[in-house]
């Protein structure tokens, strides 16, 4: 990429309905939390410019998807060209943890990424602000089972966050951005854009007057 072009990184947030995907995105992009988010239908996105590795300016385009299984066939339209995928679960909902593997598989099938073996994923366990009594019993053990499983395990960085209180959200997205940037550079180096013209179309230029989200 030329120095004048700002790198645009596409990040997809996946996970069961109600784990807090919208809240995570809103907390990261707008530093706010609300009880008033409606269920996401289809997918929404927001963008945020951040600096990583001290001097590298990137623009994160964060796609917040619908959690209900029925909408999974939509993935093709939204996952394409992704540079990083965030798998979310709710620390009070064991099923959402168990579903992480199928979310990952579904993503790989539909996004058609070139390097499924080492495509960057990251895991976020949200809602750590709630009472311990409500959390999944022996969560760490169960989490390890899922991440350390030799065959097809989700051996990815894990962050525990609270979108409500803004705990760890920033840190998680910084790692997300770094991983996404690596993936983007890998794709560049390999000379094949994940989805040719589509990816170009969403690159924005430094000199453009675009200034953040309109909402």
């Amino acid at each position, binding site marked *: 990429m030329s120095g004048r072009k700002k790198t645009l990184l596409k990040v997809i947030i996946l996970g069961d309905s109600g784990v807090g995907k919208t809240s995570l995105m809103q907390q990261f992009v707008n530093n706010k939390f609300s009880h008033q*988010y409606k269920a996401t239908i289809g997918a929404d996105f927001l963008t945020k410019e951040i600096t990583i590795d001290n001097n590298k300016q990137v623009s994160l385009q964060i796609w917040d998807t619908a959690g*209900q299984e029925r909408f999974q066939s939509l993935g093709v339209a939204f996952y394409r060209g992704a540079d990083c995928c965030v798998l979310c679960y709710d620390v009070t909902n064991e099923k959402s943890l168990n579903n992480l593997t199928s979310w990952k598989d579904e993503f790989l099938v539909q996004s058609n990424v070139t390097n499924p073996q080492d495509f960057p994923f990251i895991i976020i366990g949200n809602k750590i602000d709630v009472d311990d009594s409500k959390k999944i019993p022996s969560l760490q053990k169960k989490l390890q089972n899922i991440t350390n499983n030799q065959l097809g395990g989700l051996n990815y960085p894990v962050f525990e966050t609270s979108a409500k209180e803004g705990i760890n959200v920033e840190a998680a997205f910084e790692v997300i951005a770094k991983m996404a940037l690596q993936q983007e550079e890998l794709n560049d180096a390999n000379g094949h854009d994940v989805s040719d013209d589509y990816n170009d179309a969403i690159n924005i230029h430094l000199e453009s007057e675009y200034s953040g989200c*309109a909402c």
Partner: protein
Amino acid sequence: MGKKKPEMSQVYSHSKNEFIFGENGGKGKHLSSFLKNLSLTSSSSSLQSSTNSNVSTNDYNDINSNIYGSLSYGNSKVGSTSSNPNGIIDNGHRIIPNQRSLSVGASFSHVNAATPPPPPPNERSNTSPYSHTHSHNTGSSLLLKGPRRSHSTTRYADNDDDWDAGLEEVSKNLKIVENKNLSRVANMSDSINLQPSPVLDSLYPDLMIPISSGSAPVRSRSNSPQYKGRTSKESLDDEDYQIKLEINRLNQLNTKYSKFRRILTSDNNINLNELRKISWNGIPNELRAISWQLLLGYLPTNKTRQSSTLKRKRQEYIEGIAGVITIDFENDNTNNNGTSGNISSNLGSNNSATSLANNNRDKQIYHQINIDVKRTHPNIKLYSYPEIQTSLRKILYLWAVRHPASGYVQGINDLVTPFFQIFLGNYLWQLQRTVFGENETKLEDLQLFIPGLLDSENKDEKEQSLINDPNLLHYTIDNIDPSLISSRVYSIIEADTYWCLSRLLENITDNYIHQQPGIIRQVSELKNLISKMDLELLNHLDNEGVEFIQFSFRWMNCLLMRELSVGLIIRMWDTYLSETPLGFNNFHVYVCAAFLIKFSNDLKERDFQEILLFLQNPPTTYWKEKDIELMLSEAFIWQSLYKNASAHLK
């Protein structure tokens, strides 16, 4: 009911004259007796009105041509079906008195007389044209200000002395028939902190007066500063003109209500086609519940069958809820390892394996419904109450288990709300009408009531309390405490909502089954339509890499309920329900096309990200019903153009 105030009936006892400006318009004897009865005798207005009643055809034409000319959208439907009985002209504005005070008086009393039951002042005022005009009948000159306030312009700014004088005279007269009850109401409306309804300006006023044409003479003049206080001949003419428009508007409004009333009460068998025709252009709030139920085919058109059918359907619903699966619907606990509520199966004894599978699936469904109900219309207070959330959970859950091919899909929780709140509002209206309505029309009223909603045996204690509640007249869905309503009523409203929702969803089953093929088809139809309607826009979206599914999936899945306020959606459904086949499927795509094209210019200046961000949050916050009506009319035109012509273009 014992609470009925006799004085009140004086004011409202003339709804039988509702056609006075309608089909029989111009019959002076109606008008004069009518005014006399209203004690408007201090001026000679009643006499004059009868002599002036056949006012110059010129004036009449003037007004209508003006209205026509500036109301392109109002015409589209009318024009395309030339015999449309809802036309703007045919409603007889044959009485256009020349005297200012008289004309105001005429329209004023007219509105009062034909106003249906007094919905509470203020609270529903922005949703109901009827209640709107009525709400100011305690003698303030607000009558004519009220509707105007809802317009975005000040073209009718009431800054002319003459105008006020006329009104004062009338209001003085009207005070004669004012009564304690009404004053009490007025006072209460001041003391009670009523939340402004989030919805709309009134239904019809905007349809009747020039809106969009900035060149309308009235508008430009009254906007100019020097207009204030002018007494020249010109400005008098101008006032006349304004007054005529106002009368016109009020007549329209009343005629509309009368027509609905006539259709709903005239025959033993309600003429559904007539109802469809008139409903297309919007249904009065008070009559919406019954009209919707008729249009959906839930309430039979044959009146002898209505009570029994509803009774049976409601019983079916209750049995359905009590039946296969027992859920503690009042328990909204979500932190139960991904499931919520206490769910237990009554199937267990037969086939434990099946029931276990069902149980798991049902648990999932219930969990999904539960978390979605909590975030349904999070900004509307009504939906934050546990009673209401329980009702929604029941309706959605029963629908989901009865329709295993789709189950519950997110977005259906949005679709359930218009029915629920319209039916709940209707219950309150029925109570208000029963308590405060006039004797003469009680029998006829019954035909406007959805059967069985009110407790005929007076056993419903909560209903009795509501009847005796001094605030009854003020209650709307925006301020009612849902715990004041009995479970008997909730189960009826739930049942009606359930069946109406089922009818609606029958039309779009494909939207919610696996892979959602209905939505995929609609999205591609939308793209196809845009290629014909606005190729430039299509090309721009293509060039930016925007795919239609990225922004319009939600439009189909939630029927634009995420893009437009629920009040506007309700108005939209009046039209959808009047289309044959119902407009939720094919017609909706045309509406989406009209919706997208509204923003064509905005979109063409934006790049990929900006386009999607824009469409994620389209600027409809200040949309009024007139915007919706314009959009619907445009959609109608597109549909007439392309409906039968799209096949060979694919």
